[in-house]
């Protein structure tokens, strides 16, 4: 049964598959990353996100990550852009991929505000690429060191990318299987009426059934597309659907930025080696393996294959586990957002909030209302107002800040209102709790008030 869909032998990690798959992936991913970095720069986000803010929301465990100053940040972006270019052309590939992964991830770790699922995805793919022999053909590296040329790679090196992509889609699909999405067509019912400016389809955007159609189709697409991509028969149609779907999301929701293009490019990995060889034949100077007569070193072998295989097993295990950690937390996931990030929950809810913080001294003689705009950029404030861990980090920052201003043992109280998926705003955290005294923890925050439907 499965044999009809794909060669079962390809599930054996060491089974040789043509390297073409990795080559096109390297070139497409590298050049897309290069363009993304340039775009980021061009839009002025390097300055507005990493230079202007006075305070950054660090990730727990990564408090040591700081933007390295004006020139440092720009230099870091230059380095990452250069690394992406080197990956594309396959020059000093191993070093370039390490630099890209480390640099890109460092930038992402500076501020939780800028967390995006597809940035996390890029970091993961970059991490995977470090270990893969994607430079062993059609690269500057093999031009310089021809004896490094390989024509086949272990199936696991392609399999791990396919796994990563499948994981994104399926978890994104599973995340949509909730009452708000399926039964109430939320947040589509909020987002679509804002899209009536679109030509032709715009007039349908007020229709409730369209919101349901979008919701259900989106969920079905995410859940099933991988299986249609894996099946040789359905693959071309499935890929057309990938392109149409992601281009549509780019038109409807321009704010999702590079995400659709990342998925369009990366989904090519599901095509066969023959397809990729055909694709590469359009590239200048490409010589297929039939044109190159070579008898030794035909297939790439991982040097510490068994160790790597164990590592891969652990990686896969963690990747499946991390998006499921939300199950350990009580309450409404969308409301509490505990175990929400790093779980492929993309475009899933409409949430916004207003936050009013008050700092008091220990004996409550002094009272200062906080002006958030004094410390946070509008984007930081917007992100903080709906995410408990950011609220807590901000409260801790405020306590330090007001202590420096001379307030004795400052206590921080938050009056915070949040609206979720078209519901009315309601009090988000217990406003009688001194947040400055509440610890950052992986446990459930008892001070979040339960969501009332």
């Amino acid at each position, binding site marked *: *049964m499965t044999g009809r869909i794909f060669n079962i032998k390809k599930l054996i990690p060491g089974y040789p598959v043509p390297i073409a798959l990795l080559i096109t992936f390297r070139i497409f991913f590298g050049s897309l990353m290069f363009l993304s970095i340039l775009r980021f720069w061009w*839009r002025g*986000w390097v300055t*507005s*996100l990493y230079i202007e803010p006075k305070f950054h929301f660090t990730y727990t465990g990564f408090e040591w990550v700081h933007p390295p100053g004006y020139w440092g940040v720009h230099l870091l972006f230059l380095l990452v852009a250069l690394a992406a270019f080197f990956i594309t052309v396959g020059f000093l590939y191993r070093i370039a991929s390490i630099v890209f992964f480390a640099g890109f991830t460092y930038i992402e770790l500076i501020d939780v505000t800028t967390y*995006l*699922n*597809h940035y996390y995805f890029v970091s993961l793919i970059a991490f995977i690429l470090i270990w893969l022999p994607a430079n062993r053909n059609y690269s500057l590296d093999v031009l310089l060191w021809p004896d490094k040329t390989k024509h086949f790679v272990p199936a696991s090196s392609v399999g791990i990318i396919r796994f990563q992509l499948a994981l994104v889609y399926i978890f994104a699909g599973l995340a949509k299987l909730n009452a708000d999405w*399926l*039964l109430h067509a939320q947040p589509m019912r*909020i*987002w679509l*009426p*804002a899209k*009536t*400016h679109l030509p032709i389809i715009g*007039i349908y955007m*007020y*229709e*409730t059934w369209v919101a349901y159609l979008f919701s*259900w189709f989106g969920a*079905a697409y995410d859940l*099933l597309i991988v*299986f*249609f991509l894996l*099946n040789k028969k359905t693959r071309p149609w499935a890929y057309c659907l990938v392109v149409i779907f992601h281009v549509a999301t780019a038109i409807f929701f*321009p*704010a*999702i*930025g*590079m*995400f659709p293009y990342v998925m369009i490019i990366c989904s090519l990995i599901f095509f066969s080696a023959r397809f990729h060889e055909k694709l590469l034949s359009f590239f200048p100077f490409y010589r297929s393996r039939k044109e190159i007569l070579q008898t030794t070193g035909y297939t790439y072998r991982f040097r510490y294959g068994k160790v790597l295989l164990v590592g891969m097993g652990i990686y896969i295990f963690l990747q499946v586990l991390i998006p499921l950690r939300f199950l350990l937390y009580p309450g409404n996931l969308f409301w509490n957002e505990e175990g929400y990030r790093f779980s492929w929950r*993309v*475009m899933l809810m*409409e*949430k*916004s*909030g*207003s936050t*009013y913080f008050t700092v008091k001294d220990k004996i409550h003689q*002094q*009272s*200062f*209302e*906080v*002006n958030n*705009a*004094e410390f946070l*950029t*509008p*984007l930081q404030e*917007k992100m903080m107002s709906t995410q408990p861990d950011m609220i807590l980090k901000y409260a801790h920052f405020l306590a330090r800040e007001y202590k420096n201003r001379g307030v004795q043992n400052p206590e921080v109280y938050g009056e915070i*209102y*949040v*609206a979720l998926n*078209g519901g*009315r*705003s309601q009090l988000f955290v217990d406003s009688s709790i001194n947040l400055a005294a509440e610890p950052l923890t992986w446990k459930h925050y008892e001070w979040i008030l339960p969501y009332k439907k």
Partner: protein
Amino acid sequence: MKKRSLIIALTVGIVVFYACKKSTSGPEPSPTPGAFDKVAMLTDYADKIIIPGYSTMQQKILALQVASDAFLAAPSTATQAAVKTAYTDVHLQYVRIAAFQFGPAETNLLDVFANFSGGLDYSFTTAGQLTGFSIDSSTIENNISSGTYDLTLMSRSSLYSQGFPAINYLFFGPNAIAKFNSNTANRVKYAKAIIARLKSLVDTVANGWTTYRSEFISNTKTNAGSPIGNLVNQFAYQIDLLKGPRIGWPFGKQSNGSLFVSKTEAYFAGISTALAIENLSALKNTFTGGGSGKGMSDYLVALNKAALNTDVLAQFDVALAKLRLVPDPLSSSLTSHSAEVDQAYKEIQKLLTLLKTDVASATAVQITFVDNDGD
């Protein structure tokens, strides 16, 4: 096999779902929002509120110019009183259109040069700082004595020495009439320059709308910088100004109760509360589109948010009622009517939450003044 059954399961799911939907008829009364005409809404805003607002402003500035010329020719309490009436008219009209800080007003930085609020990102720590609705009297005096100044400068001292802050100081400040008796030529020249600059800014913006109008009414997007996005953001921003520089910060909310009486808006004219009330009631009027049936509030109703709309309108009224209990000048009411000020402040904050969170969320508008990727 598996695949096919999945597809079947899904199809069945959808069919069953819709069948159920029909039979139970759902708890929500009318799930399909009526096709709301956004172009009509924006056209109404442009033609009935914004553009007439600017032409009224132009007329009132002309009247102010006449009154001020009369005063500058013969400074007296009578001519000063005439200026005060004309200026009050202008400033009240200004706060009625203050929410339209986009398009030509944004390009020409009208709000910054006419009625600088100091921005929302400044803290009130010491009275000596140029924050909120400060008036930079020393720069004004320097400009007068030197006779040379560049009113297009973007520095804080430049912004606090022109527009309404300068008019307040020059015409209604301490010993205003007496001061025109020394260094008269330079002082008169500066006063005229300030009013001429205000006039030219408003004229530029008003003229700008003749070309900007078509762009405004045809763009029905809701993203950052779109007309609808701008309107919703301005509702929140104006209430933020009310909560911050207009009332809350001079009232000492940021500063453990230390008052900043001289940083109340239009300090020397003493009309801060009147301006706040006018700003808020104009905002309500803008929200309802002047009752045209094509306003933002009607858009909310079309989006099945009638209850929210009712609550927002009610909260506007509550906040306005509380504000009306605070007499002018605000600078003395901050101490003499502190309980009333505090009450008004609380209701303004509730209104802010409704506009910034509930209304923005319902209309899919992001309250952020920058564009950025998101997911």
